[in-house]
Protein backbone atom coordinates (compact mmCIF):
# COMPACT_ATOMS: atom_id res chain seq x y z
CA UNK A 1 0.00 0.00 0.00
CA UNK A 2 1.50 3.36 -0.93
CA UNK A 3 2.13 5.74 1.96
CA UNK A 4 0.25 9.03 2.27
CA UNK A 5 2.11 12.03 0.89
CA UNK A 6 3.20 14.07 3.92
CA UNK A 7 1.76 17.51 4.48
CA UNK A 8 3.91 20.66 4.46
CA UNK A 9 3.02 24.14 5.59
CA UNK A 10 1.06 26.45 3.30
CA UNK A 11 3.82 28.98 4.09
CA UNK A 12 3.63 32.75 4.14
CA UNK A 13 3.24 33.22 0.38
CA UNK A 14 0.07 31.35 -0.53
CA UNK A 15 -1.93 34.45 -1.42
CA UNK A 16 -1.26 34.71 -5.18
CA UNK A 17 -1.75 30.96 -5.59
CA UNK A 18 -4.83 30.27 -3.48
CA UNK A 19 -6.54 33.64 -3.04
CA UNK A 20 -5.20 35.81 -5.89
CA UNK A 21 -8.16 38.14 -6.38
CA UNK A 22 -8.59 38.77 -2.66
CA UNK A 23 -4.98 39.96 -2.45
CA UNK A 24 -5.01 41.89 -5.73
CA UNK A 25 -2.98 39.59 -7.96
CA UNK A 26 -3.79 39.34 -11.64
CA UNK A 27 -5.01 35.73 -11.68
CA UNK A 28 -8.53 34.39 -11.45
CA UNK A 29 -9.61 33.04 -8.07
CA UNK A 30 -11.46 29.74 -8.07
CA UNK A 31 -12.67 30.06 -4.54
CA UNK A 32 -13.62 33.17 -2.60
CA UNK A 33 -15.43 34.29 0.53
CA UNK A 34 -18.76 35.20 -1.02
CA UNK A 35 -20.50 31.82 -1.05
CA UNK A 36 -23.78 33.53 -1.81
CA UNK A 37 -24.48 37.01 -3.05
CA UNK A 38 -25.96 38.89 -0.07
CA UNK A 39 -27.98 41.04 -2.48
CA UNK A 40 -29.79 37.98 -3.83
CA UNK A 41 -30.12 36.08 -0.60
CA UNK A 42 -32.07 37.77 2.16
CA UNK A 43 -31.06 34.97 4.53
CA UNK A 44 -27.34 35.39 3.93
CA UNK A 45 -25.19 35.65 7.03
CA UNK A 46 -21.76 37.15 7.59
CA UNK A 47 -19.19 35.24 9.60
CA UNK A 48 -16.10 37.03 10.85
CA UNK A 49 -13.28 36.17 13.20
CA UNK A 50 -9.63 36.45 14.04
CA UNK A 51 -7.03 33.75 14.47
CA UNK A 52 -4.84 34.13 17.58
CA UNK A 53 -1.47 32.60 18.39
CA UNK A 54 -0.31 31.29 21.76
CA UNK A 55 0.39 34.75 23.20
CA UNK A 56 -2.83 36.27 21.92
CA UNK A 57 -1.36 38.01 18.87
CA UNK A 58 -3.62 38.16 15.82
CA UNK A 59 -2.26 35.98 13.01
CA UNK A 60 -2.23 37.98 9.75
CA UNK A 61 -1.23 35.15 7.41
CA UNK A 62 -3.71 32.38 8.12
CA UNK A 63 -5.90 30.84 5.45
CA UNK A 64 -9.38 29.72 6.44
CA UNK A 65 -11.55 27.36 4.40
CA UNK A 66 -15.23 26.80 5.05
CA UNK A 67 -17.34 23.86 3.89
CA UNK A 68 -21.12 23.77 4.08
CA UNK A 69 -22.09 20.19 3.26
CA UNK A 70 -25.80 20.96 3.11
CA UNK A 71 -25.64 23.74 0.53
CA UNK A 72 -22.42 22.41 -1.07
CA UNK A 73 -20.71 25.75 -0.58
CA UNK A 74 -16.95 25.98 -0.21
CA UNK A 75 -15.16 29.19 0.69
CA UNK A 76 -11.66 30.43 1.31
CA UNK A 77 -10.25 33.64 2.76
CA UNK A 78 -6.83 34.80 3.96
CA UNK A 79 -6.44 36.99 7.03
CA UNK A 80 -4.03 39.39 5.31
CA UNK A 81 -6.34 41.90 3.65
CA UNK A 82 -8.97 42.93 6.20
CA UNK A 83 -7.98 46.05 8.20
CA UNK A 84 -8.35 44.03 11.41
CA UNK A 85 -6.86 40.85 9.90
CA UNK A 86 -10.17 39.06 10.19
CA UNK A 87 -11.55 36.36 7.95
CA UNK A 88 -14.93 37.27 6.50
CA UNK A 89 -17.45 34.96 4.80
CA UNK A 90 -20.85 35.67 3.30
CA UNK A 91 -22.86 32.47 3.23
CA UNK A 92 -26.09 30.79 4.21
CA UNK A 93 -26.76 29.38 7.62
CA UNK A 94 -27.05 25.63 7.06
CA UNK A 95 -29.76 23.44 8.52
CA UNK A 96 -29.22 20.15 10.27
CA UNK A 97 -27.24 17.49 8.39
CA UNK A 98 -27.07 13.84 9.37
CA UNK A 99 -28.80 14.40 12.71
CA UNK A 100 -26.31 17.04 13.77
CA UNK A 101 -26.85 20.63 14.83
CA UNK A 102 -26.34 23.21 12.07
CA UNK A 103 -22.63 23.71 11.56
CA UNK A 104 -19.91 24.47 9.05
CA UNK A 105 -16.64 22.57 8.67
CA UNK A 106 -13.58 24.79 9.01
CA UNK A 107 -10.04 24.08 7.84
CA UNK A 108 -7.18 26.22 9.16
CA UNK A 109 -3.84 26.68 7.40
CA UNK A 110 -0.93 28.95 8.23
CA UNK A 111 2.81 29.44 8.18
CA UNK A 112 4.10 27.58 11.22
CA UNK A 113 1.51 24.87 10.87
CA UNK A 114 3.08 21.86 9.12
CA UNK A 115 -0.30 20.18 8.71
CA UNK A 116 -3.74 21.79 8.59
CA UNK A 117 -6.30 21.73 11.41
CA UNK A 118 -9.97 20.85 11.27
CA UNK A 119 -12.57 22.48 13.46
CA UNK A 120 -16.30 23.18 13.31
CA UNK A 121 -18.41 26.30 13.59
CA UNK A 122 -21.75 25.95 15.38
CA UNK A 123 -24.26 28.76 16.02
CA UNK A 124 -25.11 30.34 19.38
CA UNK A 125 -28.79 30.74 18.46
CA UNK A 126 -29.19 26.96 18.06
CA UNK A 127 -28.83 26.13 21.74
CA UNK A 128 -31.33 23.27 21.74
CA UNK A 129 -29.81 21.56 18.68
CA UNK A 130 -26.31 22.11 20.06
CA UNK A 131 -27.30 20.36 23.30
CA UNK A 132 -27.94 17.12 21.46
CA UNK A 133 -25.22 17.34 18.81
CA UNK A 134 -23.11 14.15 18.83
CA UNK A 135 -19.85 15.92 18.05
CA UNK A 136 -20.27 18.72 20.59
CA UNK A 137 -21.06 16.04 23.14
CA UNK A 138 -17.68 14.41 22.52
CA UNK A 139 -16.03 17.66 23.61
CA UNK A 140 -15.53 18.40 27.32
CA UNK A 141 -18.28 20.81 28.35
CA UNK A 142 -15.87 23.58 29.31
CA UNK A 143 -14.38 23.61 25.80
CA UNK A 144 -17.61 23.53 23.76
CA UNK A 145 -17.91 27.31 23.64
CA UNK A 146 -14.79 27.43 21.46
CA UNK A 147 -16.83 25.85 18.66
CA UNK A 148 -19.88 28.12 18.87
CA UNK A 149 -20.02 31.31 16.83
CA UNK A 150 -21.70 34.15 18.71
CA UNK A 151 -24.60 35.92 17.09
CA UNK A 152 -24.05 39.67 16.96
CA UNK A 153 -25.87 42.51 15.26
CA UNK A 154 -23.44 42.15 12.34
CA UNK A 155 -23.67 38.38 11.93
CA UNK A 156 -21.67 35.70 13.68
CA UNK A 157 -18.33 36.07 15.40
CA UNK A 158 -16.00 33.05 15.46
CA UNK A 159 -12.51 33.57 16.83
CA UNK A 160 -9.97 30.78 16.58
CA UNK A 161 -7.32 30.33 19.28
CA UNK A 162 -4.40 28.08 18.39
CA UNK A 163 -3.29 27.72 22.02
CA UNK A 164 -4.00 28.98 25.52
CA UNK A 165 -6.93 28.84 27.90
CA UNK A 166 -9.42 29.40 25.11
CA UNK A 167 -7.71 27.03 22.68
CA UNK A 168 -10.15 26.03 19.97
CA UNK A 169 -11.06 22.38 19.79
CA UNK A 170 -9.48 20.77 16.74
CA UNK A 171 -10.58 17.43 15.40
CA UNK A 172 -9.06 14.27 14.03
CA UNK A 173 -11.47 13.85 11.15
Amino acid at each position, binding site marked *: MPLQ*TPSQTVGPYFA*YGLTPEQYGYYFKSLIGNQLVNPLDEPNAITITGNVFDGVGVIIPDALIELWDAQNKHFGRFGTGTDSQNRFVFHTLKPGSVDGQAPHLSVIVFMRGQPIHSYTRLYFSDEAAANESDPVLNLVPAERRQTLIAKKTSAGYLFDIYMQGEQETVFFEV
Partner: protein
Amino acid sequence: MSELIYNHFDREVHPPYLSPEYKSTVLRAPSKPLVVIKQSLSELTGPVFGETHVGPLDHDLTRNSVRNGEPLGERIIVHGKVMDENGRPIPHTLIEIWQANSAGRYVHKVDQHDAPIDPNFLGTGRVLTDADGHYRFYTIKPGAYPWGNHYNAWRPNHIHFSLFGPNITTRLVTQMYFPGDPLLEYDPVFLGVPPKGRQLLISQFDLSVTEPHFALGYRFDFVLRGTNSTPFETA
Protein backbone atom coordinates in the same frame (compact mmCIF):
# COMPACT_ATOMS: atom_id res chain seq x y z
CA MET B 1 -24.05 -1.16 2.05
CA SER B 2 -21.05 -0.39 4.21
CA GLU B 3 -20.04 3.17 4.88
CA LEU B 4 -16.86 4.38 3.29
CA ILE B 5 -14.71 5.67 6.09
CA TYR B 6 -11.47 7.44 5.25
CA ASN B 7 -8.29 6.51 7.08
CA HIS B 8 -6.89 9.11 9.44
CA PHE B 9 -3.69 10.97 8.71
CA ASP B 10 -0.80 8.54 8.96
CA ARG B 11 1.13 10.28 11.71
CA GLU B 12 4.18 8.13 10.94
CA VAL B 13 4.73 10.14 7.76
CA HIS B 14 3.06 13.53 8.43
CA PRO B 15 4.89 16.22 10.38
CA PRO B 16 3.61 16.93 13.91
CA TYR B 17 2.13 20.35 14.68
CA LEU B 18 5.02 21.24 16.95
CA SER B 19 8.48 21.15 15.45
CA PRO B 20 10.61 23.55 17.58
CA GLU B 21 13.41 23.81 15.02
CA TYR B 22 10.81 25.40 12.74
CA LYS B 23 10.32 28.33 15.07
CA SER B 24 6.93 29.64 14.05
CA THR B 25 5.33 26.33 15.04
CA VAL B 26 5.94 27.12 18.71
CA LEU B 27 3.10 29.62 19.16
CA ARG B 28 0.86 28.20 16.45
CA ALA B 29 0.72 24.46 17.17
CA PRO B 30 -2.46 23.32 18.92
CA SER B 31 -1.38 22.05 22.33
CA LYS B 32 -4.35 19.91 23.30
CA PRO B 33 -5.02 16.45 21.86
CA LEU B 34 -7.26 16.33 18.79
CA VAL B 35 -10.81 15.15 19.44
CA VAL B 36 -11.55 12.15 17.22
CA ILE B 37 -14.93 12.38 15.51
CA LYS B 38 -16.91 9.94 13.42
CA GLN B 39 -16.99 10.98 9.77
CA SER B 40 -20.43 12.16 8.66
CA LEU B 41 -21.96 13.67 5.55
CA SER B 42 -20.33 16.92 6.65
CA GLU B 43 -16.90 15.45 6.03
CA LEU B 44 -17.60 13.13 3.11
CA THR B 45 -19.53 15.09 0.48
CA GLY B 46 -17.14 17.52 -1.18
CA PRO B 47 -16.16 20.02 -2.39
CA VAL B 48 -15.90 18.93 -6.01
CA PHE B 49 -14.29 20.92 -8.81
CA GLY B 50 -14.34 20.33 -12.56
CA GLU B 51 -13.26 21.48 -16.02
CA THR B 52 -15.07 24.77 -15.70
CA HIS B 53 -12.72 25.76 -12.91
CA VAL B 54 -9.51 25.52 -14.94
CA GLY B 55 -8.50 28.08 -17.57
CA PRO B 56 -6.76 27.16 -20.86
CA LEU B 57 -3.28 28.29 -19.73
CA ASP B 58 -3.60 27.47 -16.06
CA HIS B 59 -1.40 24.37 -16.54
CA ASP B 60 1.46 26.33 -18.10
CA LEU B 61 3.17 28.69 -15.68
CA THR B 62 5.69 29.60 -18.39
CA ARG B 63 2.90 31.19 -20.44
CA ASN B 64 0.02 32.11 -18.15
CA SER B 65 1.41 35.46 -17.02
CA VAL B 66 3.66 36.72 -19.81
CA ARG B 67 3.77 40.47 -20.48
CA ASN B 68 6.69 41.15 -22.78
CA GLY B 69 8.59 37.90 -23.23
CA GLU B 70 9.33 34.52 -21.76
CA PRO B 71 10.08 33.98 -18.09
CA LEU B 72 13.74 33.49 -17.22
CA GLY B 73 15.13 30.25 -15.86
CA GLU B 74 15.10 26.55 -16.51
CA ARG B 75 11.86 25.24 -18.05
CA ILE B 76 10.64 22.04 -16.44
CA ILE B 77 7.73 19.65 -16.80
CA VAL B 78 6.23 18.17 -13.65
CA HIS B 79 3.93 15.21 -13.97
CA GLY B 80 2.67 12.29 -11.96
CA LYS B 81 -0.36 10.56 -10.61
CA VAL B 82 -2.79 11.31 -7.80
CA MET B 83 -3.98 8.15 -6.07
CA ASP B 84 -5.33 7.01 -2.76
CA GLU B 85 -3.66 4.74 -0.25
CA ASN B 86 -5.24 1.74 -1.92
CA GLY B 87 -3.40 2.68 -5.12
CA ARG B 88 -6.60 3.71 -6.90
CA PRO B 89 -6.22 6.73 -9.18
CA ILE B 90 -8.16 9.88 -8.27
CA PRO B 91 -9.55 11.27 -11.54
CA HIS B 92 -10.62 14.87 -12.25
CA THR B 93 -9.33 16.27 -8.98
CA LEU B 94 -8.04 19.80 -8.62
CA ILE B 95 -4.37 20.59 -8.02
CA GLU B 96 -3.35 24.18 -7.26
CA ILE B 97 0.28 25.19 -7.68
CA TRP B 98 2.41 28.12 -6.48
CA GLN B 99 6.14 28.74 -6.28
CA ALA B 100 9.04 31.21 -6.36
CA ASN B 101 10.61 32.30 -9.63
CA SER B 102 14.01 31.12 -10.86
CA ALA B 103 15.77 33.72 -8.72
CA GLY B 104 14.05 32.53 -5.55
CA ARG B 105 11.61 35.43 -5.33
CA TYR B 106 7.88 35.15 -4.72
CA VAL B 107 5.63 37.81 -6.18
CA HIS B 108 3.86 37.91 -2.83
CA LYS B 109 3.93 41.47 -1.54
CA VAL B 110 5.45 40.55 1.82
CA ASP B 111 8.43 38.73 0.28
CA GLN B 112 11.32 41.17 0.78
CA HIS B 113 14.13 38.94 -0.52
CA ASP B 114 16.42 41.09 -2.62
CA ALA B 115 16.18 39.03 -5.80
CA PRO B 116 14.54 40.14 -9.03
CA ILE B 117 10.86 39.76 -9.79
CA ASP B 118 10.26 38.28 -13.22
CA PRO B 119 7.65 40.36 -15.05
CA ASN B 120 6.70 37.33 -17.13
CA PHE B 121 6.24 34.87 -14.31
CA LEU B 122 3.55 34.95 -11.66
CA GLY B 123 4.32 31.46 -10.36
CA THR B 124 0.84 30.07 -9.96
CA GLY B 125 -1.35 27.65 -11.86
CA ARG B 126 -3.77 24.78 -11.57
CA VAL B 127 -4.59 21.48 -13.25
CA LEU B 128 -7.15 18.72 -13.02
CA THR B 129 -6.07 15.10 -13.08
CA ASP B 130 -7.29 13.14 -16.11
CA ALA B 131 -9.49 10.04 -16.04
CA ASP B 132 -6.50 7.94 -14.92
CA GLY B 133 -5.41 10.33 -12.19
CA HIS B 134 -2.50 11.81 -14.14
CA TYR B 135 -1.53 15.46 -14.14
CA ARG B 136 1.13 17.44 -15.96
CA PHE B 137 2.19 21.08 -16.06
CA TYR B 138 4.97 23.32 -17.33
CA THR B 139 6.85 25.74 -15.16
CA ILE B 140 10.25 27.27 -14.38
CA LYS B 141 12.43 25.56 -11.80
CA PRO B 142 12.09 27.62 -8.61
CA GLY B 143 15.19 29.06 -6.94
CA ALA B 144 16.25 28.64 -3.32
CA TYR B 145 15.60 31.60 -1.05
CA PRO B 146 16.61 32.83 2.40
CA TRP B 147 14.19 33.05 5.31
CA GLY B 148 14.33 34.27 8.87
CA ASN B 149 14.06 31.06 10.85
CA HIS B 150 17.71 31.07 11.96
CA TYR B 151 21.05 32.50 10.87
CA ASN B 152 21.75 31.75 7.20
CA ALA B 153 18.54 29.78 6.74
CA TRP B 154 17.65 28.88 3.14
CA ARG B 155 14.66 26.99 1.84
CA PRO B 156 15.48 24.27 -0.70
CA ASN B 157 13.99 24.58 -4.19
CA HIS B 158 10.36 23.60 -3.89
CA ILE B 159 6.91 23.87 -5.44
CA HIS B 160 3.78 24.27 -3.28
CA PHE B 161 0.71 22.15 -4.00
CA SER B 162 -2.87 22.13 -2.78
CA LEU B 163 -5.05 19.07 -3.46
CA PHE B 164 -8.62 18.18 -2.62
CA GLY B 165 -9.42 14.57 -3.50
CA PRO B 166 -13.02 13.48 -2.96
CA ASN B 167 -13.83 15.44 0.22
CA ILE B 168 -12.41 17.51 3.05
CA THR B 169 -10.81 14.52 4.79
CA THR B 170 -8.48 14.05 1.80
CA ARG B 171 -7.42 17.70 1.70
CA LEU B 172 -3.65 18.05 1.37
CA VAL B 173 -1.29 21.01 1.15
CA THR B 174 2.34 20.09 0.62
CA GLN B 175 5.64 20.95 -1.03
CA MET B 176 7.60 19.02 -3.66
CA TYR B 177 11.39 19.07 -3.55
CA PHE B 178 14.08 18.23 -6.11
CA PRO B 179 16.50 15.29 -6.05
CA GLY B 180 20.02 15.97 -4.82
CA ASP B 181 19.26 19.35 -3.24
CA PRO B 182 22.01 20.01 -0.66
CA LEU B 183 19.73 22.32 1.35
CA LEU B 184 17.32 19.55 2.30
CA GLU B 185 19.45 18.31 5.18
CA TYR B 186 19.40 21.79 6.75
CA ASP B 187 15.74 22.68 6.23
CA PRO B 188 13.57 22.47 9.38
CA VAL B 189 10.37 22.45 7.32
CA PHE B 190 11.46 19.35 5.38
CA LEU B 191 13.08 17.80 8.47
CA GLY B 192 9.83 18.25 10.41
CA VAL B 193 8.59 15.27 8.41
CA PRO B 194 9.43 11.97 10.15
CA PRO B 195 12.26 10.09 8.39
CA LYS B 196 9.79 7.54 7.02
CA GLY B 197 7.99 10.26 5.06
CA ARG B 198 10.83 12.43 3.76
CA GLN B 199 11.67 10.59 0.56
CA LEU B 200 8.02 10.84 -0.44
CA LEU B 201 8.42 14.62 -0.87
CA ILE B 202 11.35 14.43 -3.30
CA SER B 203 10.53 14.31 -7.00
CA GLN B 204 12.47 12.15 -9.44
CA PHE B 205 14.16 13.27 -12.62
CA ASP B 206 12.24 11.65 -15.51
CA LEU B 207 13.90 11.35 -18.90
CA SER B 208 10.74 9.85 -20.39
CA VAL B 209 8.87 13.16 -20.22
CA THR B 210 11.91 15.38 -20.81
CA GLU B 211 11.36 17.22 -24.09
CA PRO B 212 14.45 17.45 -26.35
CA HIS B 213 15.84 20.99 -26.68
CA PHE B 214 13.04 22.28 -24.47
CA ALA B 215 12.54 21.17 -20.86
CA LEU B 216 13.59 18.65 -18.20
CA GLY B 217 10.96 16.33 -16.74
CA TYR B 218 10.28 15.46 -13.12
CA ARG B 219 7.84 12.93 -11.69
CA PHE B 220 5.96 13.43 -8.44
CA ASP B 221 3.07 11.23 -7.31
CA PHE B 222 0.56 12.20 -4.63
CA VAL B 223 -1.08 9.71 -2.31
CA LEU B 224 -4.18 10.94 -0.48
CA ARG B 225 -5.94 9.25 2.41
CA GLY B 226 -7.70 6.04 1.34
CA THR B 227 -10.72 4.21 2.63
CA ASN B 228 -11.07 1.19 4.84
CA SER B 229 -12.94 -0.85 2.25
CA THR B 230 -10.75 -3.32 0.42
CA PRO B 231 -11.70 -4.67 -3.00
CA PHE B 232 -10.62 -8.19 -2.07
CA GLU B 233 -12.71 -8.63 1.02
CA THR B 234 -14.11 -12.15 1.39
CA ALA B 235 -17.40 -13.03 2.97
